[in-house]
């Protein structure tokens, strides 16, 4: 019986890592499409998003099965409940990456990306997603805390991009549609960063059983100016 439980737990772990890797693929594909204009990456991203949706359902079923049949307690229960929460964050990352891909064609055509900090933002976001998955894979508190801190960078970059776009509008010689699209993409990146931060928080929760650290930092972050 316990043997089966252990097997199911390790299956849950593998599935979560796979789903995380798919998230990385989705966001990397979206960013590559946005910056390098490679049609192939668009499909990579959309394909990853489809797989992420499927994985979410699979993992959800597995978690419920674990809870119903094995009645996990203590650390095991934390892992399962954190998994249930994590997959919804991962699913959102996949969705938002594919949203970026859907908005991107116009900007890609116009090539209006270069003047803003959106490239840096994309890179920072990829790094966050990648590290949040890493923290889960390695069950590493340190990496998880780094991810949570790193969200400030992404938020800062969002503000920067916003300021740049405002300036562009004020100068009056920019393509309005592209500017709006850019703003949305920047917002998506910012949201993805938040989801990555959530994942890191869940990792911390599943290790320590406490939300405190995450809450502390979140409190600090809310004090930052210009956060919408």
């Amino acid at each position, binding site marked *: 019986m316990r043997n089966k439980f252990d*097997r199911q737990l390790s299956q849950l*772990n*593998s599935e979560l*890592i*796979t789903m995380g*890797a798919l998230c990385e693929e989705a966001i990397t594909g979206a960013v590559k499409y946005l910056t390098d204009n490679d049609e192939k990456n668009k499909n990579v991203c959309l394909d990853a998003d489809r797989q992420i949706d499927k994985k979410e359902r699979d993992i959800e079923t597995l978690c419920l099965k674990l809870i119903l049949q094995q009645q996990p307690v203590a650390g095991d229960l934390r892992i399962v409940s954190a998994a249930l929460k994590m997959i919804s964050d991962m699913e959102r990352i996949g969705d938002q990456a594919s949203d970026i891909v859907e908005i991107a064609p116009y900007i890609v055509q116009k090539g209006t990306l270069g003047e803003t900090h959106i490239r840096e933002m994309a890179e920072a976001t990829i790094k966050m997603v990648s590290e949040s*998955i890493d923290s889960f*894979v*390695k*069950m590493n508190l340190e990496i998880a805390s780094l991810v949570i801190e790193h969200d400030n960078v992404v938020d800062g970059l969002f503000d920067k991009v916003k300021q740049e776009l405002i300036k562009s509008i004020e100068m009056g010689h920019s393509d309005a549609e592209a500017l709006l699209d850019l703003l949305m993409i920047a917002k998506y990146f910012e949201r993805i960063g938040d989801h990555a931060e959530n994942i890191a928080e869940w990792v911390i929760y599943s290790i320590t059983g406490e939300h405190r650290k995450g809450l502390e930092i979140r409190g600090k972050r809310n004090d930052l100016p210009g956060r919408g």
Partner: protein
Amino acid sequence: MNKKIFRSSMFTVFLVLIATIVLIFGILFQFFEKQIQAELSNEAEFLALAVENEGITFFDDFDSKNNRVTLIDKDGSVLYDSVADAGRLDNHAEREEVKDAMKDGKGISIRYSKTLTEKTMNYALRLTNGSILRVSTEQYTVITILMGMLQPIFFIMAAAMILTFMISSRVSRAIIEPINRLDLEAPENNDTYEELTPLLKKIAEQKETIGEQLASARKKQKEFSLITENMSEGFLVIDQDANLLAYNTAALKLLDIAAPSDKSVLLFCRAKEFRDVISDALSGKRAENIMARGECSYSLIANPVFEKESVIGAVVVILDITESEKRDVLRREFTANVSHELKTPLTSISGFAELMKEGDVAAEYVIDFSKSIYDEAQRLITLVNDIIKLSELDGESISFESEPVDLYELLQEVISRLENEAAKRKIAFHLIGDRAVITGVRKILDEMFYNLCDNAIKYNREGGMVDIIVNQTKDEVNVMVRDTGIGIPAEHQSRVFERFYRVDKSHSKKVGGTGLGLAIVKHGAVYHHAKISLESAVDAGTTVTLAFVPYRLSNTTVSFFRSSTTS
């Protein structure tokens, strides 16, 4: 053990108890029955005598203490009964004992009460007048007596149980103790029950077998890890659930990760390519893929492991192909450069020739066109010559005559050939140094220095300088060619010695050259075992230093080299 002994001894006690009761009752009851019967018949005979003598009146003052006495008339009606009223009793003629007595003179019968708890023994005797005298005695049956004995029996059983429990636990302890004291490390050295000897022997044998198997397993494990640990390729073995069974340190090093804490293979790497090859392999297909990770690229090869036609795992090999990928890129670049260098002049020639063939060219341009064709053709010839020279240097089978060469003298000659070219761009040559003789091939050395000096002019600025310093130390002859030209950016410095490599990717015709000059220098240096070094700064100039082996020392090495290459 304790339980078993307890159970069996309890069983024995129980059996003995039952057997004893049955035996005692069987024997005693029969004995008592006979006794009672005898008493009964005695009493009956005594009473019969009395009745015969006194008639029925005997009963008037008769007081029966124990037994019931009945006098029955010959027709069966009861005349007297010591217990009940004679008149109310029914006819006894059909009673077994009465019937027997009428017939034989006496009769016996035993009747049980309805509940079987009591039995009545009757003894009937025929009197001389034909009437029957019956004496009955009531007696408890076996069951009643047993019932009466139940309590003591239970007491006995309980006592037996306690005793048995105590004894059995003591006995089992006593039996087990020596067994517990067995030294299983050396099973055959024990002095214990004889009955255990076969078991101990078997244990000893199995111990030996296990020891051998363990040793061989350990040896195999060691061999396996020796082989895998000495592989430079990463090596992973996984089971059908994609859990790690084994991996070598090379795999960790290649992927630059710490040893995974859990058994899932995804902790190793979760890249799509990696997941794909693993899922392919676990579905029974051999899979290969190339995975890029940071600056490096890896080749992944996964093979399924079958047992009875079902996949039980997979073996994954990870190869670092960063170098070969890089070489591949270089080769592609090289091919593109060669075709470009060869094609450009030919296209021009063909174009000019085509125009002239059509007759569209005005007479005054024909000369210009011809000059262009001539120039391009010259360029092609130079290029082809350079390629031939390089392939001569490459192909070690072509032998050159080695001789002592004075580099100072050789450089003077090279400079004199290039003086015109230098003068055109107002570039001044300075040759500093003294005679320095090495052993080498004059033709190749000439080619090398010509190319070096030629580059120093080509990539110089107007009115620049070229310093050539020949310097002989104890075990080296250094030749330094220093210009004040445009220099080479740091990122290109490591590649300028490659064939057809150009810092200026536009292959500008203005400067000319084939892109092979420095390649020739490098190959010549390799041929002469000379060390080559390059220092350069953009817009400040370039210094190329060649360090040769001097004549005296080089004698043996060069001859050795020559003999080894020509053989």
